[in-house]
């Protein structure tokens, strides 16, 4: 039986405002519940409902409290973001090395076949998507008058992913350029391809970073902003503050809702998928995106072959053989990316509180 008491409603509101790891959220909610129950017992009013109302009022506004948690724990959150970014970077570098040396059997580097490798494109995709999302969010954040510290965290996280992707792309590009230069003039065209790619990453990174810094500077007008902190913690605070806007921006831009409508439309067409609300079924939604992304790769490969006029029966056969592997590979990557970054970048939310609150409202 669902408890629809004032205290539970209050805790739901508080939990919805907390953009913190699940473990920390659970602990905060547990402590708040204990405190509120004690306050209710000690309330100087008669009646359970009145006592609960008094207790929740004495405890403070849930939104204010959530914001205070975000401010106080911002340094720890940004440290976690840096650690995660470093771990992702290390993982990608190891993966890159493994792919070049053994799986793909490319002895000299990334572009000896003149077309780059699938991994290059995947890293590029991650960098581009993270970059564009961060850029859009940061640009909007820079113009918004209602920013607070809770709303900006995700911009910093997006930037972190973007920075890691850009570093990896630059490393891969350098490796490719060196390989092409060593191999002679046959692959000069690839050098230009890499140079343009690096330039795009650099421009996106710079613009996104400058927008986010501009956005975070606007927070100086907010009371008790950690921006007023001095010493070595200030830059970390600033990074965290700069990121908080994206949870707000994700909602404001309506990325999740819009992509949800598209998915719902697609799923209505496909008999295999009944219409569903992506916010209620995030993993189902992610699976659909994964399959779509996986299908897109061999289709694009086919288009490239047709465009180049290289379509012959043997290549079509090769494509048909590699297509399932590519679909599975891309699909797995999209799902992994969604699992790793979905909540991190504010693309999906915790559903527990929403489901609890729904019927009681």
């Amino acid at each position, binding site marked *: 039986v669902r408890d629809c008491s004032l205290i539970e409603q209050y805790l739901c509101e508080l939990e919805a405002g907390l953009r913190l790891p699940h473990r*920390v959220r659970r*602990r*905060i909610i*547990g*402590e*708040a519940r*204990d*405190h509120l*129950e*004690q*306050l209710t017992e000690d309330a100087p009013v008669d009646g359970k409902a009145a006592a609960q109302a008094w207790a929740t009022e*004495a*405890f*403070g*506004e849930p939104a*204010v*409290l959530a914001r*205070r*948690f975000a*401010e*106080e*724990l911002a*340094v*720890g959150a940004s440290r976690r973001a840096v650690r995660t970014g470093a771990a992702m970077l290390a993982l990608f570098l190891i993966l890159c090395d493994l792919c070049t040396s053994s799986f793909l059997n490319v002895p000299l580097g990334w572009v000896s076949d003149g077309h780059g490798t699938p991994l290059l494109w995947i890293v590029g995709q991650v960098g581009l998507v993270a970059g564009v999302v961060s850029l859009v969010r940061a640009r909007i954040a820079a113009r918004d008058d209602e920013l607070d510290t809770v709303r900006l965290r995700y911009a910093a996280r997006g930037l972190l992913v973007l920075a890691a992707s850009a570093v990896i792309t630059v490393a891969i590009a350098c490796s490719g350029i060196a390989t092409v230069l060593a191999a002679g003039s046959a692959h000069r065209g690839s050098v230009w391809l890499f140079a343009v790619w690096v330039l795009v990453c650099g421009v996106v990174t710079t613009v996104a970073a400058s927008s986010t810094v501009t956005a975070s500077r606007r927070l100086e007008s907010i*009371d*008790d902003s950690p921006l007023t902190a001095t010493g070595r913690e200030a830059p970390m605070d600033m990074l965290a503050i700069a990121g908080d806007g994206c949870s707000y921006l994700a909602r404001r831009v309506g990325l999740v809702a819009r992509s949800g409508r598209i998915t719902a439309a697609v799923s209505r067409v496909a008999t295999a998928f009944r219409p569903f609300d992506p916010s209620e079924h995030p993993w189902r939604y992610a699976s659909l995106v994964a399959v779509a992304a996986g299908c897109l790769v061999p289709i694009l490969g086919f288009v490239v072959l047709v465009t180049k006029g290289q379509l012959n029966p043997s290549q079509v056969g090769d494509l048909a053989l590699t297509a399932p592997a590519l679909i599975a590979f891309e699909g797995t990557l999209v799902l992994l990316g969604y699992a790793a970054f979905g909540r991190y970048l504010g693309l999906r939310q915790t559903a527990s509180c929403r489901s609890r609150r729904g019927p009681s409202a």
Partner: protein
Amino acid sequence: MSGNLPVRGHLDAMLLSVLSAGPAHGYAVIETLRGRSGGVFDLPEGTIYPALHRLEQEGLLSSRSISVSGRRRRVYQLTRRGRGQLGEHRQAWGVFASAVDTVLRGSECATAR
């Protein structure tokens, strides 16, 4: 600016001071804080938790979950580092309060003349 900002500026030191007497849970901490200040520091009850969490994150406090009368409660206590920090806070506050007192009394004397 928030009306309780002056309290927030010294909240860390006050929380450490309250917990220097022994381990306590959040409810007891705010009760003690209110009692010791004679009701002057009447903060919204929830506001001490973000500060307690941060102090724990910084290693000045530690916490553990215990069962009291069938209810799970998280109890905070001072770490050795927290004790050292409290000493520094007390010393800094002593110097600051003494200086402010001297300045205020000085202006009082000047006015009297």
